């Protein structure tokens, strides 16, 4: 009787110990699962969040560097001062050899065509040239004129020889739009007035050939 009780107690104790060990192991496993899961979540959040920040910053930089949609560009334009007329490969001209005197370009409104050789010099000084022909509506010409009147380093003039109704030109960059309400007008102005493309930053838009 006694030994049977003894072995029963022993069994019971062993069973209890087994159970404690199982509970322990289960608890350890739960803790491990929790820790690993938590760790993975934190890591994913950090990496994911970091990647989001990173790509947002990249996007911002790229947007700033991106050209205006639809613009044409020219590289390696000549900058010499010459007295004679120049045959420019684009109309209106966006760069190349030009006259030693710039056309006044600080909110300047020209109602007659001006010499491209003077206008190109103004582009060298960082001005944006807005030009129109008779395909542009009178309302658009008025709106653009008003814009030039309140925007520094811009000038406006008719250019009958251009292909589109409204063209914006900066040194090495040109955009043609159909209407003055095109959002890219503002984008071009923001980007190129005294912008990074300016070969001669700090140069004047007054003291040249008047309108």
């Amino acid at each position, binding site marked *: 009787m006694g030994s049977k009780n003894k072995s029963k107690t022993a069994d019971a104790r062993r069973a209890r110990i087994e159970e404690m060990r199982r509970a*322990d*192991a289960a608890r*350890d496993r739960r803790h*491990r699962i929790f*820790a690993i899961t938590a*760790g993975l979540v*934190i*890591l994913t959040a*950090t*990496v994911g*969040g*970091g990647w989001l*920040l*990173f790509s*947002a*910053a990249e996007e*911002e930089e790229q947007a*700033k560097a991106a050209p205006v949609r639809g613009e044409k560009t020219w590289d390696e334009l000549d900058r010499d001062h010459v007295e004679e007329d120049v045959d420019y490969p684009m109309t209106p001209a966006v760069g190349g050899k030009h006259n030693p005197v710039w056309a006044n370009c*600080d909110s300047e409104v020209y109602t007659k065509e001006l010499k491209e050789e003077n206008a190109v010099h103004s582009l060298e000084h960082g001005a944006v040239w807005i030009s129109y022909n008779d395909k542009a509506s009178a309302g658009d010409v008025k709106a653009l004129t008003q814009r030039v*009147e*309140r*925007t*520094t*380093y811009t000038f406006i003039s008719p250019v009958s020889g251009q292909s589109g109704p409204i063209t914006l030109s900066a040194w090495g960059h040109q955009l043609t739009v159909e209407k003055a309400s095109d959002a890219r007008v*503002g984008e071009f*102005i*923001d*980007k190129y*007035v*005294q*912008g*990074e493309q300016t070969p001669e*930053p*700090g140069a004047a838009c*007054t*003291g040249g050939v008047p309108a």
Partner: protein
Amino acid sequence: MSGDLRRWWPAALSTFVALWLAVLTLVVVRTEPWRSEHPGKESVDAGFARDMAVHHQQAVEMSFLVRDSTGDESVRRLAYDIINTQANQRGMLLARLDEWKLPKTSREPPMAWMGHEMDHAAHGGFRMPGMATDAQLDELREAEGKEAEVLYLQLMSAHHHGGVDMAKAAAEQAEDRELASLAEGMVSSQRSEITLMASMLKKRGANAG
């Protein structure tokens, strides 16, 4: 098994923390969140830099005009001073905009950054405080001798009053400490020039008009 876990638990944890710190460092260094703390497009700093650059440019222009119109040494010297100071300061202002990668133009009317509505009618449309009109510049261009001196001193006094208002607002509200300091300098030097011009006008039998 649980015994093993207890042994490699600290090692695993430290590795994990180290990895996490490394990733964090990489992210911070690459995105440079401190750098995007430069003033924004419509901030006081940017607005002041843009508008004051234009304002200064006109003062330079007026000063060249008067130097061509008179032989009077004191007026020519004042004009020389204004040309050099304001042209240089304009360069400094434009450089800050380049640094912050902001455009030199804005869709907002001038002085919008000052935070109060400008009375467009009273100030003739999109004109900044104290700026001369094209007609006034033409008048200065055509005047000669004493007439040119008086006109210049009157126009420049009004110009400086406007400039002081702008610079004062920037000195008080700009985020960028160097810009605020530059603006403060403008306030004091333009104020003293206003006093000088008042006495020069008095000597010529005129007042600030």
